[in-house]
């Protein structure tokens, strides 16, 4: 190991055996530029070296799948000759370092992944995790992240139609920012990032290259410690205006057949985009860094190749068609530069003013990264976590209800989504905060429904069940909106995979996602992995976030969770059992994450979802909402909020399973059993719904009516909750907002 000392390798995040692999692949020592290329391409972030063995087990095929994992985003057929392109991605570490820009550039990155495929992005969602809000720093992070998401998405003009936010101490030093984007494209218009055609010119389009984010990709793959502050110069600044121009120009370009391949420059910038497009197409790419537009003077080729400046694209154009594409660049006032061409030798060759400074097989960088089967082991503490401690006296149900409603995890997220443009391009069918995201597809009768969900508490207690529950919940939310789930994307946020306990969480979660998706016949078309989310040895809750996309054949059948003003029957679908493990109730009232998460009967779940979709399509129901965090009582209240209607219902006691020791009312009201939903029924359709439910084997009961201005719940004939909608809503509305109240009148 002559050429580089250990310190240099360590700075590049390369282990000695990894370095040896490089030498073997090249048949020589790498140059410094080459070392940099390997460093970023073989980082955890780009190569998935710890996660690949597991990800391979996920189901990725199905009749609707047009593009599975591997491309910039997944694509599924939605009928009418159209495809939906969607993906979720994390920007966790950058958002901790600089919340506004970290989140903003995260949004910018996922949007590029979508339009790179030729699709017009039409909706965004975000899944966020923060530490408790009584800590000022956590408030500042949340405030910055939300402003950054809005700042980017609002400016570029893509509606943010949904999301979720949860809080836990473990996210204090490691907030999670996962962003989802959906686009639509003609099914035969999908553009791949596969270079081809020897001699075709390679163009660089968009913002100039600066020293931003050099080693961002390796940073995202290393744990935080006290020294992370030193990595700060890496911060990238987002420019949504530039991206809007890129978006419009690229979509215009891709309408012509002059463009062969398009690839955005995200993590690992020019290095990644050149070797990946080359490797995918089985060709080589040669560029000269002297042509790359730079923002700062004195940039070295190493820096130019590794820079992560935002809002840049790589294009391969058909030879002879250059003028055509250049005219489009000019129309949009975009700077473009011809930086090289496609070659037949399968090498990524980088020149600096003609001198070759790196020459590496494109596949060595893109595909030959080491793949680790890291050891995994169930943590010794796992059994203890699953046991329920003795909790003493149970508070009155009415009190607990108010505590839950004002708990930031459950409270209204209006303070957040009010800062997002949720309507631009006039497709949004379900208002922000009223259920799954639903956007119509203009030019068709259809709409698309989408939801992102994940529950780190469940996953801590049982990562396998927790992951299955996340798939089920996201799909259920889509079904509640009237959508038939058709595809899944996922973002896997975990701690340090070099620790066997974390690797166990990861492996179990992936196994759970795979099993749930197979059972629900949902292909996983893409996703993202974010590891090393830990600070000083304290890992985040294992947090797989699942994004589900569904189709609503008739957009007018889309449903929100909000009760109608006119009186309607309320039907509860599913069964409530005594299931408090990992619940919001235990967290909000007792400050603990313990027990066994709710059991998931996947057959029941599947039938419930079919029923919900059918009931919406026949317009038997006005509204549908699943019972999730906080249980039945919280879900019922959420159906009342912003509807102007109250509800009076009577429910039976929960079915006893593992007894938590709570009284009958508490159990029935706050247990978090899966596979349940509250629907309000259109006049005269109750029987139709109940008959269909019975056929599908979904327990269903009329529990009361909407109306009045109170929320009244009786359990086993006893009054359990009786308050005005207004007083409940006030707590729910203030629960999160109170932490941010500005004193400016």
């Amino acid at each position: 190991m002559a050429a580089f000392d250990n310190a240099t390798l360590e700075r590049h995040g390369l282990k000695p055996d990894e370095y040896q692999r490089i030498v073997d692949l090249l048949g020589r020592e790498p140059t410094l530029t080459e070392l940099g290329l390997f460093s970023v391409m073989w980082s955890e972030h780009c190569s998935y070296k710890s996660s690949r063995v597991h990800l391979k087990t996920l189901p990725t095929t199905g009749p609707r799948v047009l593009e599975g994992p591997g491309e910039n985003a997944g694509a599924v057929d939605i009928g009418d000759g159209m495809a939906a392109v969607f993906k979720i991605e994390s920007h966790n570490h950058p958002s901790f370092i600089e919340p506004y820009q970290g989140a903003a550039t995260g949004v910018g990155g996922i949007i590029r992944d979508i339009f790179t495929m030729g699709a017009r992005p039409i909706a965004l969602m975000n899944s966020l995790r923060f530490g408790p809000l009584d800590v000022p720093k956590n408030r500042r992070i949340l405030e910055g992240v939300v402003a950054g998401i809005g700042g980017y998405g609002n400016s570029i003009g893509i509606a943010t139609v949904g999301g979720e936010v949860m809080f836990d101490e473990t996210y204090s030093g490691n907030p999670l920012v996962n962003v989802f984007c959906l686009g639509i494209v003609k099914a035969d218009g999908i553009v791949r990032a596969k270079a081809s055609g020897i001699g075709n010119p390679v163009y660089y389009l968009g913002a100039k290259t600066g020293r931003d984010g050099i080693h961002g990709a390796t940073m995202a793959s290393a744990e935080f410690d006290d020294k992370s502050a030193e990595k700060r110069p890496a911060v990238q600044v987002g420019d949504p205006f530039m991206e809007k121009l890129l978006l419009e120009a690229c979509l215009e370009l891709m309408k012509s057949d002059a463009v062969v391949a398009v690839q955005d420059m995200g993590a690992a910038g020019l290095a990644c985009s050149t070797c990946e497009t080359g490797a995918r197409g089985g060709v080589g790419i040669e560029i000269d860094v002297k042509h790359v537009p730079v923002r700062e003077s004195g940039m070295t080729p190493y820096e130019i190749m590794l820079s992560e400046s935002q809002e840049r694209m790589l294009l391969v154009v058909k030879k002879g068609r250059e003028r055509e594409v250049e005219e489009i660049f000019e129309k949009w006032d975009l700077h473009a530069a011809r930086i090289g061409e496609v070659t037949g030798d399968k090498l990524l060759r980088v020149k600096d003013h003609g001198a070759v400074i790196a020459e590496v097989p494109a596949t060595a960088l893109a595909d030959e990264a080491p793949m680790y089967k890291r050891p995994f082991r169930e943590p010794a503490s796992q059994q203890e976590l699953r046991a329920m401690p003795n909790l003493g006296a149970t508070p009155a149900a009415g009190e607990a209800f108010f505590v839950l409603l004002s708990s930031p995890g459950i409270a209204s997220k209006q303070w957040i989504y009010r800062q997002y443009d949720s309507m631009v391009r006039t497709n949004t069918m379900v208002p922000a905060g009223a259920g799954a995201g639903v956007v119509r597809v203009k030019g068709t009768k259809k709409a698309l429904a989408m939801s992102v969900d994940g529950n780190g508490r469940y996953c801590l207690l049982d990562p396998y069940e927790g992951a299955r529950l996340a798939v089920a919940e996201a799909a259920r939310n889509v079904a509640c909106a009237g959508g038939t789930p058709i595809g899944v994307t996922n973002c896997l946020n975990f701690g340090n995979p070099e620790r066997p306990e974390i690797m166990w969480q990861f492996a179990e979660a992936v196994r759970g996602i795979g099993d749930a998706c197979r059972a629900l016949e949902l292909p996983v078309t893409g996703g993202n992995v974010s590891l090393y989310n830990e600070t000083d040895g304290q890992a985040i809750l294992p947090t797989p976030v699942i994004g589900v996309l569904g189709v609503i054949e008739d957009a007018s059948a889309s449903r929100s969770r909000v009760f109608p003003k006119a009186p309607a029957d309320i039907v509860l679908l599913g069964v409530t059992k005594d299931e408090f493990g990992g619940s919001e109730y235990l967290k909000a009232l007792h400050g603990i994450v313990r027990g066994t998460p709710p059991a998931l009967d996947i057959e029941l779940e599947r039938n419930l979802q079919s029923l919900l979709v059918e009931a919406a399509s026949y317009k038997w129901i006005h509204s549908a909402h699943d019972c999730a965090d906080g249980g039945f009582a919280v879900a019922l209240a959420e159906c009342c909020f912003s509807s102007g209607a109250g509800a009076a219902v009577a429910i039976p006691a929960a079915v006893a399973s593992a007894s938590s020791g709570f009284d009958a009312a508490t159990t029935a009201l706050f247990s978090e059993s899966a596979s349940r939903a509250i629907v309000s029924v259109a006049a005269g359709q109750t029987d139709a719904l109940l008959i269909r439910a019975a056929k599908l084997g979904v327990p269903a009961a009329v529990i009361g009516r909407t109306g009045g201005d109170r929320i009244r719940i009786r359990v086993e004939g006893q009054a359990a909750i009786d308050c005005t909608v207004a007083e409940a809503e006030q707590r729910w509305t203030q629960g999160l907002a109170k932490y941010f109240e500005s004193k400016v009148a």
Partner: protein
Amino acid sequence: MKFAVVVFPGSNCDHDAYHAAKHVLGQDAEFVWHKDTSLAGADAVILPGGFAHGDYLRTGAIARFSPVMASVKAFAEAGHPVLGVCNGFQILLEAGLLPGAMLRNRGLKFICEYVGVKVEQTDTPFTSACAPGQILNIPINHGEGNYFADDEVLDRLERERRVIFRYVNAAGEAAPDANPNGAARNIAGICSERRNVVGMMPHPERACEPSLGSGDGLVLFESVVKTLAEQGRMAVQK
């Protein structure tokens, strides 16, 4: 009739205005790129919402120098209807086609939500089909909609009945709690001296289809058709 929707780099409600005019209202509409200078054939011009030039520096500050703006000015001076929505309003202010300026929202946050908007005057081409005092439920979507002008200008606007829209509560009062952004005198929209140029922060084009939440904004588009028909200025196609 034909609406011309001006597209600045960074406009993002251009398609929404176009969609409302063409597909909901059923009139003709066309996009006009900001580097073009011809508005030939247009009966009304819309400057749409969005973030022209990123809204960098100040909202509308750079857009007002776009080549198309000279034509918009001439079009307005000839008495034709011009509507600026949100960013379009901000551009009209910067271009001096309407008086005043925009400050950041009082709460410093971007706000996207439905608000109550009262139609104060119906003698403009964009409110002629409204009932006097009608309250529209339409969304706002901006970070800088805090309308400012000095008292003299404000008094003059009131005197000349040029405050066209005001933020109001459910009771129809322009009360402080109905004011989402701190705008002077709850002003949501104003018109020019000749009344043909209207700027407003709320987005009527987003509220043209009840299935999306509200159809209250369509009346503004219907108003133009009505006014132009009354003036015999164009052949109604519908």
